[in-house]
């Protein structure tokens, strides 16, 4: 028996008044496929199914979704990691508005990313070639720059669900710390002064859902802790 039961979240705003789950059956021929492969097999049965995908190898971050209750990238998640009792349940990333089927509106997520000013700011005269870093200074960016903005972390965070307009969320804060920790960035104080309210950083309760789901194995909770230490040092 190599048939896999796939339960899919379906919503078409033009025809459906409410979202519903639709059942599909897919013949995997006993292979341990990636979830994205299964989605393509479902799309062969019903080409009205909408989902995002691009690189299919965990680099672009397009196909973040909720697989049997856990957020992740469909393209690098094997069935053996998520399928329980021969059933695969796929839903869009939770907490953000659904546009159609598995496609969500990531506007608020990007708005929070934009807020932390994710680019290098340096008020000193640029050198003739480039701004140099010591290997030690460069090491501080490891575990920060690798983020692909798939939104798996922020959409698994209850604090982001409740206050997506005020709490920056784990993805944005990881990137915020990426620039706070960069020896070439001179806007540290200005960046911190934008974050010291009770929501932007401090709505993090440290439950580490973000760490549990990050497909790149990053640790936003640790970055948030470091931002908190910097805020505390700056304010006391």
């Amino acid at each position, binding site marked *: 028996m190599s048939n896999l039961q796939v339960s899919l979240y379906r919503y078409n705003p033009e025809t459906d008044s409410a979202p519903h789950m639709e059942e599909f059956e897919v013949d995997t021929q006993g292979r341990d496929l990636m979830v994205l492969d299964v989605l393509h097999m479902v799309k062969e049965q019903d080409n009205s199914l909408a989902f995002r995908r691009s690189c299919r190898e965990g680099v672009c971050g397009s196909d973040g979704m909720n697989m049997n209750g856990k957020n992740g990238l469909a393209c690098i998640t094997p069935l053996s990691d998520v399928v329980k009792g021969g059933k695969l349940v796929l839903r869009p990333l939770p907490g953000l508005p659904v546009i159609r089927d598995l496609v969500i509106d990531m506007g608020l997520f990007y708005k929070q990313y934009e807020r932390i000013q994710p680019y290098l700011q340096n008020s000193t005269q640029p050198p003739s070639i480039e701004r140099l870093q010591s290997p030690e200074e460069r090491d501080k960016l490891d575990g920060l720059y690798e983020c692909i903005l798939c939104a798996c972390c922020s959409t698994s965070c209850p604090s982001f669900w*409740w206050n997506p307009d005020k709490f920056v969320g784990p993805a944005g804060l990881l990137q915020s710390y990426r620039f706070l920790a960069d020896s070439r960035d001179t806007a540290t104080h200005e960046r911190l002064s934008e974050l010291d*309210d009770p929501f932007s950083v401090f709505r993090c309760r440290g439950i580490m859902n973000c760490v549990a789901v990050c497909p790149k194995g990053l640790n936003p909770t640790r970055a948030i802790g470091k931002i908190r230490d910097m*805020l505390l040092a700056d304010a006391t």
Partner: protein
Amino acid sequence: MVTNITNLGRSGVSDWLIQRVSAVVMALYTLFIVGFLLFSSDLDYATWSGLFAQTWMRIFSLLAFVSIAAHAWVGLWTVTTDYIKPAGIRIAAQSIIILANFVFLVWGIQVVWGA
């Protein structure tokens, strides 16, 4: 920067620090009271009243009361901003919480310091 006017410290860093320090004070006070109850043999009114007659115990108690009030303000403020979305109901709930904290604090001071 998200502005707020009803949280205790007016800043996230301040609220965060108040929450940690007040938690430590409350933990020490709880441990002390439980320890006192466990280890004082034949506890009677005179011993209990004598404990609270001492200045250091009054200061310790007042510190604990202030900590409870601050801790409750910061914590419940957070709960109201998470779960109560209509602004009118949220402001009303926050006002009731802040007023209740004040009443309990003054009442506590009166119990320990009053005649």
